[in-house]
């Protein structure tokens, strides 16, 4: 039952910080996409933004939140499904940001991009949960699953609207805070939908070959470091560009 889940609040807070940092880096890269002068530049900007969002804001957040969650038994992760969840988040976010940043703004485009991003967040989460290897029977409350998906889509639409339609601090900070809410809101609602039932302590096959929290911690540290460096580079490049523009 979900009552078996206990959270380390510090790590929960850290998961939100990481999702905001990843969203900030991703969205600030994304708003540069319309300024790309060649298709190569555009593709590079889309992939960089998609990676920051998919792997940084969503994937890293998810696994910090999983480390924050004590399920009362040892847990490991299937490496293949864990890697696949990152790839799906990256692909969905790249597609969503590419749609949102193409041509003039339209509500249809915003909705399509928001759905892509929202489904990317949701797919990553549930694939990440499918990677969980633990000695218990698991099931989902489908109403909460649907709610988590709705939260991800709606908050993604709002975040993209803020990022591409506003200018100034609200664009930069507001969009990242809202996207962080999209990712965390989806995740923790999804976790509330996750039910655990004892199976009598039978360890499932593959538990020995699964990744433990320690392995994930190192990966998450690297991802976080890359995000921080990315955010700093964006800031530096932006200052440089601003100074170079002559009247």
């Amino acid at each position, binding site marked *: 039952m979900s009552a078996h889940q206990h959270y380390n609040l510090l790590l929960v807070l850290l998961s939100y910080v990481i999702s905001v940092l990843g969203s900030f880096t991703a969205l600030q890269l994304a708003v540069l996409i319309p300024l790309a002068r060649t298709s190569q530049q555009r593709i590079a900007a889309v992939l960089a933004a998609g990676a920051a969002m998919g792997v940084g804001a969503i994937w890293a957040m998810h696994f910090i939140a999983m480390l924050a969650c004590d399920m009362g038994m040892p847990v490991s992760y299937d490496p293949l499904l864990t890697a696949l969840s990152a790839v799906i988040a990256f692909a969905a976010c790249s597609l969503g940001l590419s749609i949102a*940043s193409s041509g003039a703004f339209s509500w249809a485009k915003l909705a399509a991009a928001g759905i892509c991003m929202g489904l990317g967040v949701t797919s990553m989460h549930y694939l990440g949960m499918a990677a969980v290897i633990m000695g218990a029977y698991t099931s989902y409350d489908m109403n909460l699953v649907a709610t988590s998906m709705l939260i991800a889509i709606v908050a993604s639409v709002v975040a993209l609207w803020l*990022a591409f*339609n506003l200018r100034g601090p609200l*664009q930069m900070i507001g969009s990242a805070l809202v996207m962080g809410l999209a990712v965390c809101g989806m995740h923790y609602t999804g976790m509330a939908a996750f039910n655990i039932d004892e199976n009598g302590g039978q360890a499932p096959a593959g538990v020995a070959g699964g990744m433990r929290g320690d392995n994930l911690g190192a990966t998450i540290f690297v991802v976080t470091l890359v995000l921080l460096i990315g955010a700093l580079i964006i800031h530096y490049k932006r200052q440089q560009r601003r100074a170079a523009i002559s*009247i």
Partner: protein
Amino acid sequence: MIELEIQILSDRREGLLVELGRVVVASGFTLLRQRVYQDSQGAWLVMVVRGEVERQLGLEELLATHNRVLSFEATLLAPGAAAPVGVAPLPVPRAPNGATNGSPPSLAAVGPDVSKVETVLPQLARDYPKIFPWLLALEHEVAAEAREASLLLAGRRTGIWVYKRDYEMGGKLGLIDSIKRIASPALRALVTVDVRERHVHIQNCPLCPPGGHSGCKFFSGFLEGMLGASAAPQTVFVRNVHCRSHSSGAGDCILEVSH
């Protein structure tokens, strides 16, 4: 007909002449001579073009908003100063500064005093948003006939510059959204404004004192430059509905923006 020498700085050389040559031709100008070279700042394209004076502002706006252009400077060549096509390396002689100082009167009478505007633009960039002393000085320095066109040009160039500097990152917006989210905060850095859809009310415009001469031209140009660069589609017109300088200082200056 006028001849302009246009110096353009871009980040790379490839295709620069082709892309900007098309802009020149599309604006109704003829490309007389050109030179492309590279230095530590980037790739430079210097063109001498000939065309109707009425089309000059349009050409400058297209160049200023072109994605290959980092910066540019257009200088009016003195009549007869330009060498024949394909001859003589650049730089070419420029028109003497100050149309008000005597020559060339025929050009100054119909267009902006480009050299005066070009002189003041770096000061505007340096002191922005505290730019009104420079604009008032410009207003007094240029000939009466060139005043409005000069302020319009200064406004356009400033508007485009502010857009590129502070508001370019993000999606292309429609006109109303551009007015609300880009022009409105940009104008608020300069003056007190009240924006109502397509109408911009400027309170106590410092460039339009009672009996003043600008006719809100700087702000018209500022909006045209900024919105032309930001809104989709890019052709934006600004009409002066009311100027307080024409009514003994009463009321707001009102500008109407349209496609």
